[in-house]
């Protein structure tokens, strides 16, 4: 101990690559961020401490650097239809300025990635996970027709401003809508997006995030990101927040994390993400993996992703086995101590027969069986600005 360093070394060995630096690297270090390797980049895991940063975000506003994520532009005539061949969402019905959660599926219905797609009027803007972005690009390029253009915004960073003070904070910067008729940034609704100017600096802003709180995700040129982070953190209600709190916040919000709660071995139905399969697509199909996914919608799945609340204070983590009596019925995919609830919580895939809310189960941790109960997610209510 501490044994978290071991996993960092293991990752390095796996990739055989030195982590890359994001545009805010020096800024994080100057602010006391403890940098770890994540998704191929050096990123801050914490500044003052995960619990303090977590609670600050729930009470005020936290600024997260998520520049490791892939920002992709998909353009060309028929882009909506071309994306619909790969995503189960109703992309054709996604109006300009609207954002939607979607999934990249393989032919078996397995989840290759989860992502956000925004209709920016003359193109679609996708935000995909950092660790999967290169595979996503290869997959998209393989299936998208040649006339559809795919660009990676590799000269842009991405900031997330999250928490109840997010709107007044971003509002205080005096952003101007880039086009007539676009709403002021404080008037954006959840899952709405627009372009703004902060002085001379262009920003792509959506009202969304990964904490369960109200907030924004802000796409900004790498050259301008430090000035923006500095301006936001100059406000007394905004602090920089590391990856550690990002993980505990999203866990409380019941939001799955790709590579842990979602993988090619999981499908949208057992993952509890059937809402991402739009009504029209359920009847029409026509997306990669449609046949098995629609069959699962119809017939149910053997396992389901559930929330588990643990008794006591000891956390169950990824990989821990879940039991009903003496029978193994599932496996934890994410787990940890919930700073807002002050007890441990977890996500697990369990057999459908044991997935009902209120079901009493146990989780094996270091040879002990910890009592747990299936509870609805989110663990902590969402507070989106609808």
């Amino acid at each position, binding site marked *: 101990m501490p*044994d978290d*360093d071991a996993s960092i070394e293991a990752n390095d060995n796996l990739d055989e690559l030195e982590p890359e630096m994001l545009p805010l690297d020096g800024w994080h270090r100057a602010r006391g961020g403890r940098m770890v390797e994540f998704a191929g980049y050096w990123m801050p*895991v*914490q500044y003052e*401490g995960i619990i303090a940063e977590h609670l600050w975000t729930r009470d005020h506003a936290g600024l997260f650097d998520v520049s490791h994520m892939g920002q992709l532009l998909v353009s060309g005539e028929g882009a909506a239809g071309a994306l619909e061949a790969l995503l189960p969402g109703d992309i054709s019905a996604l109006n300009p300025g609207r954002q939607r959660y979607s999934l990249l599926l393989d032919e078996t219905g397995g989840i290759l990635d989860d992502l956000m797609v925004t209709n920016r009027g003359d193109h679609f803007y996708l935000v995909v996970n950092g660790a999967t972005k290169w595979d996503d690009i290869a997959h998209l390029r393989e299936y998208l027709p040649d006339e559809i253009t795919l660009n990676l915004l590799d000269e842009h960073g991405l900031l997330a401003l999250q928490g109840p003070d997010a709107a007044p904070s971003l509002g205080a910067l005096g952003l101007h809508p880039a086009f007539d008729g676009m709403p002021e940034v404080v008037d954006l609704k959840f899952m709405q997006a627009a372009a703004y100017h902060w002085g001379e600096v262009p920003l792509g802003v959506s009202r969304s995030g990964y904490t369960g709180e109200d907030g924004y995700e802000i796409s900004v040129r790498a050259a301008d990101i430090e000035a923006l982070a500095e301006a936001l953190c100059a406000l007394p209600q905004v602090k920089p927040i590391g990856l*550690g709190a990002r993980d505990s916040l999203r866990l409380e919000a019941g939001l799955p994390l790709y590579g842990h709660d979602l993988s090619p071995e999981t499908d949208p139905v057992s993952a509890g993400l059937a809402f991402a399969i739009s009504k029209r697509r359920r009847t029409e199909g026509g997306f990669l993996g449609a046949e098995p996914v629609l069959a699962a919608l119809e017939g149910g799945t053997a396992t389901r992703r559930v929330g588990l609340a643990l008794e006591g204070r000891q956390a169950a983590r990824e990989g821990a086995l879940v039991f009903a009596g003496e029978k193994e019925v599932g496996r934890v995919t994410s787990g*940890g*101590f919930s*700073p807002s609830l002050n007890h441990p919580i977890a996500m697990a895939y369990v057999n459908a027969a044991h997935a009902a809310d209120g079901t009493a189960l146990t989780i094996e941790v270091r040879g002990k069986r910890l009592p747990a109960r299936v509870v609805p997610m989110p663990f902590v209510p969402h507070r989106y600005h609808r």
Partner: protein
Amino acid sequence: MTTYYTKDHEWIAVEGETGTVGITDYAQGQLGDITFVELPEPGSAVKQGDAPCVVDSVKAASDVYAPVGGTVTEANAALADAPELVNTEAESGGWLFRLTLADPGQLGGLMDRPAYDEYVKGL
């Protein structure tokens, strides 16, 4: 009383045949917010290098190794309700357990404070 340190960042304060074990301030800083401590049962026998204790932080669970072998006489009951004591008082009130040393000769392989500080500086 003499305090010894391990490369795994445990300390043991020895008085006569009794040793009090904890993790160092450096270790708690690396682990971050500690949310739970699994303590050994009094009466249990531990060998040098065993992991009779687990410290859970928000990030991960980490083993605490016994700096020397012996028989556990007491666990820090205050940690059940206040595991954060390991963060705030790692090298005093946040001690983990006490044991009766099986072989004081095992202390010879441990570091004193200046050697430990030097070791941490090199990490």
